[in-house]
């Protein structure tokens, strides 16, 4: 099948690859770039396990073609920790507040929470619940995820105030 060259920025690095028109972004990330943090849970945009950040929006990469990401700036879970390994406050918050169990939804959940906190740095519990309604979790019952996101929001605000 004919392939098309695409160029995009993933976690701050420019990547160029030839892909088929029909290749889904999630398969491109996982199989071509070996960024396996985003997962596939439904392939129908319902579960959010494949959520990544694309051009400042949360997207479900299972229903976007890789060719649609031409020129895009994408951030995945692999791009969240600092270069020295320091965890992002959301990653730290999920661990501190026991916001994960099997870990399968976690990368998508954290990427969604990241964008939510960009849009609303100090969300209420109800706003957090609404903000992650497109991401399903079968293990935690969400209560500790809400706490984890609140934890991170607090840390990020302290950090911002210090800067």
């Amino acid at each position, binding site marked *: 099948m004919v392939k098309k060259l695409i160029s995009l920025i993933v976690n701050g690095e420019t990547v160029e690859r030839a892909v088929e028109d029909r290749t889904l972004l999630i*398969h491109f990330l996982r199989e071509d770039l070996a960024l396996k943090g985003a997962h596939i849970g439904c392939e129908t945009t319902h579960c959010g396990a494949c959520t990544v950040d694309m051009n400042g929006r949360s997207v479900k990469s299972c229903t976007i073609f890789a060719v649609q990401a031409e020129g895009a700036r994408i951030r995945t879970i692999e791009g969240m920790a600092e270069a020295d390994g320091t965890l992002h406050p959301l990653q730290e918050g999920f661990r501190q507040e026991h916001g994960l169990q099997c870990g399968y939804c976690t990368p998508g959940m954290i990427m969604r929470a990241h964008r939510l906190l960009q849009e609303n740095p100090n969300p209420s519990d109800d706003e957090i619940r609404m903000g992650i309604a497109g991401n399903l979790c079968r293990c935690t019952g969400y*209560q*500790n995820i809400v706490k984890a996101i609140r934890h991170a929001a607090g840390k990020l605000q302290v950090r911002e105030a210090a800067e």
Partner: protein
Amino acid sequence: MNEHTPISERTAKLEGIGCKRKRVEDIRFVQGKGNYVDDIVLPGMLFGDFVRSPYAHARIKAIHKEAALALPGVKAVLTAADLIPLNLHYMPTLAGDVQAVLAHEKVLFQNQEVVFVIATDRYIAADAVELIEVEYEELPPLVDPFKAMAPDAPLLREDIKDKASGAHGPRKHHNHIFTWAVGDKPSTDAAFAGAAVTVKELISYQRCHPCPMETCASVASMDKINGELTLWGTFQAPHVVRTVASLIAGIPEHKIRVIAPDIGGGFGNKVGVYPGYVMSVVGSIVLGKPVKWVEDRIENLSATAFARDYHMTGELAATSDGRITALRAHVLADHGAFDACADPTKFPAGLFHICTGSYDIPVAHVEVDGVYTNKAPGGVAYRCSFRVTEAAYMIERLVDILAQKLGMDAAELRSKNFIQTAQFPYKSALGWEYDSGDYPTAMNKVLGAVGYDALRAEQAQMLADFKAGTSRKLMGIGVSFFTEIVGAGPSKNCDILGIGMFDSCEIRVHPTGSAIARLGTKSQGQGHETTYAQILATETGIPADMITIEEGDTDTAPYGLGTYGSRSTPVAGAACSRAGKKVRQKAQMIAAHLLEVHHDDLEWDVDGFQIKGLPERRKSMKELAWAAYNDVPPGMEMGLEAVDYYDPPNFTFPFGAYICVAEIDVETGETKIRRFYALDDCGTRINPMIIEGQVHGGLTEAFGIAMGQIIDYDETGNVRGASFMDYFLPTAVETPYWETDYTETPSPHHPIGAKGVGESPNVGGVPAFSNAVNDAFAKLGGVHMQMPHTAPRVWNYAKGLGLVS
């Protein structure tokens, strides 16, 4: 840290039993560095995909695979005809039946596996699936289990039509699987005949699905030169898979390595053996290349496992003042097209006979009939111990229905019939010996915490307002007091394929005082890497952070029966404790040698041995580990390691009291959960943080089941509910806020008193929600509404009661 460090500080450093230790596995999961089956990539790996049946019941007339084979990248197209020479077209199920790997002559449920395609990538495999044409001749489908044994019911299983008996005794009809009965029928019938009050209700527990976020998957790699098969997969019980693979494929067991890497949730879905696993192995054997199979969500919901589908006609007999005198039940169990239930061999209805619940019921009798229908096979324990959630749902609904008939309060009737604390160990009418419990304390704590009497007063006021026409809202209070039976189990009761349901732990202490332990279970999110290390830390004095826990690789882990039925802590956790004690015993001999005293003169103190009365003369476990490799007593083997295979003497019996407060808008049928209070008693609490997380998750799954989940079929056998458009998984928005509480009644027979908790909230939660919804209508003519309590169903129920026009 030295001998002068206070005990409290040394204990804290261990992060042992009782500590809210942060999870070890989270470090990789929060960075997207988990290793799930679909993350596995091997050189030359191929992808498999299925052609599935569009019909529930049809004869296969022809399969045309030429067009698919002509597609570049397609490596093989396999049908039952290809498997017959290998005798692989059927595989044994855990329930003593067989299941078609690829449909042979007939299809028996919609989305059944018919053809397996193998191609160089998943897109080409999907293209090939589209190119394959299968000709069918439709046959009449059997969807309603109540019609399965009608004289004119269609014959489903032609492959066993002449078998007069199955794995569990005689069959009385061509669609009959088994009849299983327990209890004292004459005494029970006599108690009912003479009872002042009786209730009887058909209580159906709908077909639903565990639906973990990660679907089922496998990667098989056959090394033809050495004759070795490596199989990665979503396996809750990897050792059992190895044994089954050896039996099916005829490969000696030592030549098979099964690896369950990180698993994205299981909830019972990943206990069974599915055609996809078998076909990835067959594909790899045929082609000599690794073959990956990953099911999509529709395949998951419609073909690999289902849960429940139990239709329970339950009865209680009681005195006029509310003393329960007998329980009787008949269950019609819909097992689908093949009996692929995951139950201990002796119990085709699992541990359903825990259905006398938390109550001292003198006599009982239960009979279960299993039948075939044109539906997906399965019958897995969705976050419960083998049919325990069905049992708890039936008894907890029946007690409410009895309370309603007697005009008694639901909590009061329960308390009146509780097994009393002094009665433990308690022998139930259906044969179980409950190990321990303190039911009144738990119940009273919960009633006090929620302000039960005030809630009932508020409910009465809302009912009065509703009747007066000033409000359209009703309040329901759901009380649930459940007793579980988990930790399967004693090998005298429980085996899988003849293998006793023990579990195991092997620990090796390194010279510098750290350790590795391996177990026969397999975490799917429960946090075993964290909690097992806590048990070992307490037992050995080695800090939990210095103990690596490994599971899931059959080449390295000792044989175990896996993780399901809340058995990891009760069984493998016990093995941990005992293996740790064995290490400590050897360390004590080494300490005696080093301190030049008799070992009886030593006492254990958190993380080392000290001379009784001379605590300053001590050897820490770290020092003893080093000595184990250079200075052991004469005649002693070097090294410091232990292995323990634990066969529990009994099950454990966790219990809990749950209260659900619901508000129903009768005009729309919508239910709002105002409050949910859950008290769990799981005995000794190893990691309270993880326990609370398990309870939150289990309650959320219970909420999903009670309020929305159903896999149902139309009259032609089309599956409905097999996608996330149709199958209800609660989001953060619908999910209620959970309040948790506990009491702690240790199991007397368990080495550390732990009972298991993962499934309690599902077992106890479902009746709490359902009782709340039913309770709202109990004074308006309602008796029992079948689950799930979706808004349209509740609205229709209210309409049937004449409450909406």
